């Protein structure tokens, strides 16, 4: 079964908190290839993490 967007967003979020299994990563990659919305979400997750650290550490 293909991952849907909800499952994809769930795994992308968990990917920031734990190492994903090879199988999970493979299913994610496949969904991301086909879905621009989830690709955007993935980039936004990375941006939000970087922004919060920037906010915390700025002088």
């Amino acid at each position, binding site marked *: 079964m293909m991952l849907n967007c909800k499952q994809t967003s769930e795994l992308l979020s968990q990917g920031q908190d734990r190492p994903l299994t090879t199988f999970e990563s493979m299913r994610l990659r496949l969904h991301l290839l086909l879905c*621009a*919305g989830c690709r955007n979400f993935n980039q936004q997750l990375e941006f939000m993490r970087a922004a919060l650290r*920037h906010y915390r550490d700025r002088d």
Partner: protein
Amino acid sequence: MVFIVPAQTTEPVASPAAIGLERPYLLRYARLQLRDPALAEDAVQETLLAAVEGAARFSGKSTLRTWLTGILKHKIMDQLRRAGREQPLAGFDDDRSEAEIIDSLFLQNGHWREFPGNWGNPDAELENSRFWSAFELCLQRLPARTARAFTMREVMDLPTEEICQELGITATNCWVILHRARLTLRECLDLQWFGNTNR
């Protein structure tokens, strides 16, 4: 002419003055986690006091900031535990569970209700002070318990196992809360900043 270069002191320096210079950073860090200026002030005061009294223990293996942050993390956790004993956080701040809030953003078939749009080159916003106002607003809008788990993860860099233990929840529950926090923060930033073409 001979210049005599004084030998670099090998003793790591954690002078009260150097420690004091890190105060604004520590305060910002504590406020992000505690979301209460008075509690944050207390945690930072305790940290500065402990650092000045224990300056001899600063080995210089890490930067002064890293050393101070380590002390501050303990003081913050003490504050959270103390506050938790006095007034435990209610289950959640609104009636819906975290899982229900996640569900509400997707259709029955698991598709996004609103497709995440492209934020362009968001790194450019890091230099924009108005962006940070929107960012602060969105962080403040996260409900207390959701925000606590999220900042433990993203500000204090704690592994999820430690967050689960502190909050007395399962790992699965922890992942659900973090997922909800990220979806809600994303939605707010999109609404407050990135989706707004007139910014």
